[in-house]
């Protein structure tokens, strides 16, 4: 008979435990196959895509779009396409909106999707008591009526971007009957949508597990299961993809991107997205001097910043309109010209020996190389006669100062605009009364004001181009670059890059 000493028993137990723990890792590996595992860069705070702070977080939209459908869909190139609405528009005199609702769609619980769901979602979004952050757009139409699959409503205040917002933040259709039955808390615990994937399991700060919706109107998704692992630390995301624990990840440092895409079994794609880096100028102190503003812009070698700091991953821009945006005008340029910058400063009595002084605020680590970029810019400025002192702050502080119009004369920030409309970029960033603008001058507000409700689309877009030109000529803001989003994935996957930056599982397939 085999007898074991106490020491042998302990050793066996420890050995068994270690073997079990190591084998436990095997479970995680074995699941890969029909499962797409995404090492995602943010946590999902809340499931309701129409209320609360997370509803306006662009990074989370990829998750929301997996579970819910938007009123209007958006292709990876930012063009609009039928979503739960198959057609939409205004009547001739812009006093009515009409929408045709897709037929044959079901919610994840099997119940039919109806025009009532669309109307309820629109009215709920327009109701200021529900807390939809984009209520100011949704409230511009109302009094909806349903006839068959067509919805008609009154235009309460003409808003040219009304339908564009239907493919953007909070533009999601939620299930009326289900939501009213379970309430907000019940919905958070068991959300349903009409989207390509259904919520299967969720653990905050850890993962979201989705399973394919076999009845999806766009066809059954490529993967049976999708797992979003919430990995906010970039180093850990690199490790996730490098170790094979995840199949795809995004927003890794550019140095790591260059290394990983060359690694065996991995591939990468880097695409310019609808997110730009810029320097807000506040109309205070020395920034009231046009020469100083323009000199500050002309003195920045944006290409050198992109090439040397961002390893070429960025697109220099001269207006707040990126090339994919509707009001982008390539003829508007503010070239790098240090001599001109010095001349402008000299005209105002400044020189390298007698520099103009101001503070520039920036985040550090919030966006790729943000602090380093500002350091480089301050160095470029110094050569022409600008002495800027860098003040580092947290992004929360930026929001607070911006809302109170108390930013420093210059402040670095990034701005997203996934629908590419000029109102959601130049408009909100530069219109004085906007809580997100710190430039408040009557001349610019006078140009922008009439464009908000301009019904003639051609006239509206050309109006915004004129605004961009005027801003560039007067140096009211310093646009820097359009960001490039790096995505790394296993080589046996095919990934369609999304200009909106949303890494949607439906854009990933097996190659």
């Amino acid at each position, binding site marked *: 008979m085999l007898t074991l000493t106490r020491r042998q028993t302990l050793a066996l137990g420890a050995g068994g435990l270690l073997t079990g723990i190591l084998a436990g890792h095997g*479970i*995680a590996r074995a699941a890969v196959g029909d499962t797409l595992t995404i090492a995602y860069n943010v946590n999902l*705070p809340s499931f309701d895509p129409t209320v*609360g702070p997370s509803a306006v977080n662009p990074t989370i939209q990829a998750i929301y779009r997996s579970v819910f459908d938007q009123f209007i869909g958006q292709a990876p190139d930012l063009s609009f396409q039928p979503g739960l609405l198959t057609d939409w528009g205004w009547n001739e005199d812009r006093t009515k909106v009409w929408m045709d609702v897709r037929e044959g769609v079901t919610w994840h619980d099997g119940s039919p999707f109806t025009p009532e769901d669309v109307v309820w979602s629109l009215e709920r979004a327009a109701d200021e008591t529900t*807390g939809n952050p984009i209520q*100011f757009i949704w409230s511009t139409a109302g009094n909806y009526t349903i006839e068959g699959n067509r919805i008609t409503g009154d235009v309460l205040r003409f808003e040219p971007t009304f339908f564009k917002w239907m493919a953007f933040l909070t533009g999601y259709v939620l299930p009326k009957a289900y939501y009213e039955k379970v309430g907000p808390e019940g919905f958070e615990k068991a959300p349903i949508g009409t989207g390509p994937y259904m919520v299967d399991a969720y653990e905050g700060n*850890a993962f979201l597990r989705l399973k394919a919706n076999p009845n999806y109107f766009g066809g059954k998704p490529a993967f049976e*299961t999708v797992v979003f692992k919430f990995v906010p630390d970039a*180093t850990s995301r690199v490790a996730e993809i490098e170790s094979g624990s995840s199949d795809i990840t995004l927003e890794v440092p550019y140095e790591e991107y260059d290394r990983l895409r060359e690694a065996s079994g991995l591939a990468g794609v880097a695409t310019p997205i609808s997110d730009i880096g810029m320097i807000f100028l506040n109309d205070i102190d020395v920034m009231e001097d046009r020469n100083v503003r323009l000199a500050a812009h002309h003195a920045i070698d944006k290409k050198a910043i992109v090439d040397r700091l961002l390893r070429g991953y960025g697109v220099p821009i001269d207006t707040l309109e990126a090339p994919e945006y509707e009001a982008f005008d390539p003829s508007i340029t503010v070239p790098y010209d240090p001599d001109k910058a010095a001349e402008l400063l000299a005209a105002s009595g400044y020189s390298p020996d007698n520099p103009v002084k101001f503070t520039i605020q920036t985040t550090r680590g919030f966006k790729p190389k943000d602090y380093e970029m500002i350091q480089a810019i301050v160095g470029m400025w110094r050569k022409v006669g600008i002495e800027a002192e860098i003040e580092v702050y947290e992004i929360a*502080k930026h929001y607070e100062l911006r809302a109170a119009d108390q930013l420093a004369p210059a402040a670095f920030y990034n701005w997203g605009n996934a629908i590419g409309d000029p109102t959601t970029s130049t408009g909100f960033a530069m219109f004085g009364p906007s809580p997100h603008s710190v430039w408040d001058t009557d001349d610019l507000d006078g140009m922008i004001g009439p464009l908000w409700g301009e019904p003639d689309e051609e006239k509206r877009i050309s109006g915004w181009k004129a605004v961009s030109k005027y801003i560039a000529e007067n140096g009211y803001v310093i646009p820097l670059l359009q960001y490039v989003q790096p995505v790394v994935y296993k080589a046996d996957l095919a990934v369609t890059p999304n200009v909106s930056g949303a890494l949607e599982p439906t854009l990933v397939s097996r190659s």
Partner: protein
Amino acid sequence: MLALQALHRLLMAAVTLFGVAVVVFVLLRVVPGDPVAMMIAPGASPEDVAALRARYGLDLSIPEQFLVWLGGVVTGDFGTSISLRRDVLELLSERLPATLELAVAALLVAMLVGGAVAVAGTLARRSVLGSAIDGFNGVMLAIPDFVWALALVLGLGVMVPLFPLTGRIDPTAADGFSSRFYLVESLLTLRFEVFADVASHMVMPTLALALPLAAIIARVLKASLVEAMGEDYILLARLKGMSETRLVLQEALRNAVGPTLALTGVQFTFLIGGTVIVERIFAYPGIGNMAIDAVINRDLPLIQGLVLMFGLLFILVNVAVDAAVAALNPRLRHG
């Protein structure tokens, strides 16, 4: 007498927690970062901003806000998280078990490793090996937990991928739990495969937290052991022919463990604080990871709840350590 001591303890705990509540509440409202500023819609008017402020009760004066919040806390209502839109107490009770399992595992590993190093160092104290152990321990002591975390990610996560890098459990196996104590529950319900999976996810964060604490324990325990080894009763035992190993383990260790235990208790509270960064690196869903998101989002109710929770944990740990030290030391036990 015992009842009076307990009452005194309870009173002190309440006073401490109240102090923590006041400090955190005031600090959060003084430091930069307005949560409402982070939620303002692009087209919001000043009236919209005021309404948003009123929705979260931020339109009241700070003393009024404090009284409203304190009144809620006393009745078990810690408020609603601004960013997660859920009851704060519910969120804390969901996340705390993950952190507790991690912290306790780290403590056990630290005690085992630290104890082993201390004993080995004591046995080899007059040799080159002893110096080597001391030097090694010094290096361990100098490396903070987040550096260990990154080194482990690289070593055991990428170069030799033995353990899962992130999370608490394999997402495809995370079903069927009736509590949030995954490790304990899977063991008690004899789901060994799940237990192994949960344990494998804990290995790296546990080591990252445990190794710096182990170095501290090793240093303090070794000093106590060396001191004890010079006592008369050890000399007597040695004269009786007891081996050096038995002298350390059976005689010196019992007397040396008291101060180490007290220090370990204090360090354990720091270890819980260390979970914040380690949980972030390993995407481990505990209260530490949640705390970072709460701070980034200026989620005032959640931060307040988290700090109170940390404060309560610190108090409970200290009470437990005092009790343990008293139990081990008859002089303290009998006043």
